[in-house]
């Protein structure tokens, strides 16, 4: 077996891994990033297309947390991780959440000023901006509907850079942090699946990995490292740690934002090339209303949920239809469990009755916004869900959104290896070092004690930068 030596091994190249790599390499450390997925040019695939699902999504997007109801979820599996496939919305960690987490989990150096300092540094590398000029019509719908109802709405900033023609380019990790890490000497090894960490008592000595070569054959290698950062995200990181024998507070407490969708049909064509950047924040942080990818395939899926018999007729004028969502902060939680002999872990999630009720409320509020903005027909993601064309009809959604009929999804997965000094309920210390180890760190969404109610990428990156600095100061 070939052996590769490095000072620091980072497993995963998403928001956590790439920030960690850039900071450690710039501090003079020898860094190797092992990324399970392939390395594509940033523009290689049309966003949210079938080709992108096939190439960049883990399991081609066919992942689900088992439970009642089951909840579909998506993860990136490529250099840059999920930052390559998300909508790029950017939202710093709200101060009240940082205070709550610091208190409940005894997280050291986790104050607003510290996090803001790291967020500012991150934002210098990944351009944060609003759309120049007017927002696209599909996004303005949310603002128009909210305004008509007297509700608050906001155009969220995104990790986008705009040229002089107003053309936006998402500033993913493969465009920002990864080039910075490479410039500082980081080696990126794509197509490299880490099978197991190797340990000697309290020290991790490296990992055994399998590299998929150009001809499809696989080479098993041993990577020896002084220190190891696991940054595979809230599903893959706990699974790897469990496979490697680390189980103390690892994998439980999975959190995410359960999401229900509505396809809204209007009387004229809308834009479909971008994801709406407005959000209705009247009920935030516990309930957020926003817009989804609305390519022809996504519109068809949304229509088919509620009205399979109408699919053919509605899809003929699919440009008139846009998909929106309501997402909640959930009281429920889940678990990631590695299954011996299998690569993919078992993911389960329990939605509480209060979650279902909050989601139904969100669905009704979403319907109110869309009708107020001029939608003429609403198709909820409920099996044979009532199609609604006026406000009076929305009441039927309360009873229709049951565990048996709802079709839910999510993207923001967190909290499976919480950080903090309250060791009875955390898997790592305040800076991501896994308990009972000397040199094994986690630095990704797993550390967040809860799903924050907004896209967590900004929080993940700021915390990763903070933890990398703490590591360098040890």
């Amino acid at each position, binding site marked *: 077996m070939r052996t590769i030596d490095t000072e620091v091994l980072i497993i995963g190249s998403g928001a956590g891994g790439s920030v960690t790599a850039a900071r450690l390499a710039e501090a003079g450390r020898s860094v190797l990033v092992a990324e399970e997925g392939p390395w594509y040019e940033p523009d290689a695939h049309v966003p949210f297309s*079938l080709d992108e699902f096939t190439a960049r999504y883990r399991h*081609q*997007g066919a992942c689900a947390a088992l439970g009642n109801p089951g909840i579909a979820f998506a993860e990136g599996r490529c250099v840059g991780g999920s930052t390559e496939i998300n909508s790029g919305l950017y939202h710093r960690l709200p101060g009240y959440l940082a205070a709550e987490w610091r208190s409940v989990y005894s997280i050291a150096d986790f104050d607003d000023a510290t996090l803001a300092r790291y967020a500012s540094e991150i934002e210098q590398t990944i351009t944060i901006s609003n759309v120049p000029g007017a927002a696209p019509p599909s996004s303005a719908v949310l603002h128009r509907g909210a305004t008509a109802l007297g509700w608050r709405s906001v155009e969220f900033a995104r990790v986008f850079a705009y040229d002089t023609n107003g053309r936006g380019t998402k500033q993913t990790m493969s465009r920002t942090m990864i080039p910075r890490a490479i410039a500082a000497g980081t080696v990126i090894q794509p197509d490299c699946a880490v099978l197991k960490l190797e340990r000697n008592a309290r020290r991790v000595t490296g990992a055994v990995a399998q590299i998929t070569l150009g001809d499809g054959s696989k080479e098993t290698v041993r990577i020896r490292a002084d220190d190891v950062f696991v940054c595979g995200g809230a599903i893959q990181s706990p699974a790897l740690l469990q496979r490697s024998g680390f189980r103390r507070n690892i994998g439980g407490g999975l959190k995410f934002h359960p999401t229900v969708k509505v396809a809204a049909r209007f009387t004229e064509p809308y834009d479909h090339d971008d994801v709406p950047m407005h959000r209705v924040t009247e009920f935030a942080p516990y309930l957020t209303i926003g817009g989804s990818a609305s390519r*022809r*395939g996504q519109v*068809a*899926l949304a229509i088919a949920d509620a009205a*399979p018999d109408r699919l053919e007729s509605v899809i003929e004028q699919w440009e008139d239809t846009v998909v929106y969502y309501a997402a909640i902060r959930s009281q429920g939680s889940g678990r990631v469990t590695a299954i011996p002999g299998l*690569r*993919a872990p078992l993911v389960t999630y329990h939605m509480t009755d209060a979650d279902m009720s909050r989601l139904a409320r969100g669905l009704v509020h979403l319907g109110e916004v869309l009708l107020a903005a001029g939608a003429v027909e609403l198709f909820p993601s409920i099996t044979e869900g009532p199609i609604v064309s006026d406000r009076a009809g929305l009441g039927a959604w309360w009873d229709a959104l049951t565990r048996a009929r709802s079709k839910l999804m999510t993207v923001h997965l967190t909290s499976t290896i919480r950080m903090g000094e309250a060791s009875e309920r955390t898997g790592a210390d305040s800076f991501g070092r896994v308990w009972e180890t000397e040199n094994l760190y986690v630095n990704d969404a797993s550390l967040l004690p809860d799903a924050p109610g907004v896209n967590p990428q900004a929080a993940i990156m700021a915390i990763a930068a903070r933890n990398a600095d703490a590591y360098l100061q040890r």
Partner: protein
Amino acid sequence: MLWLERRIVAALAGSDDDRSGGAISEFVDSSFRAMPQHLRLGVVVESIGLGAYVRVRYLGRPTSQQIRTALAGFERFPLGVVRQYPQLLASLVIFAQYERPIP
């Protein structure tokens, strides 16, 4: 793909699969291969069990219409895992069918 899976794809996609050169079947097949193994195992068990039911119910050679009727019945079944089976197949077929332009 197993027998029932192929029959369901054919019933749902109709002539679109042929006109796309089998692209819909190919996407469903590759999605099954990419699935987490334990989820794929669950789907295989259902495909065998429900496939046996369909063969017995329709005497071995169900038409596409009969397959669609069977799927509608599965979608109303009291057990969640049975309801989710046709939903999964339909989602994969519809996404491939409408995402990719079919000549």
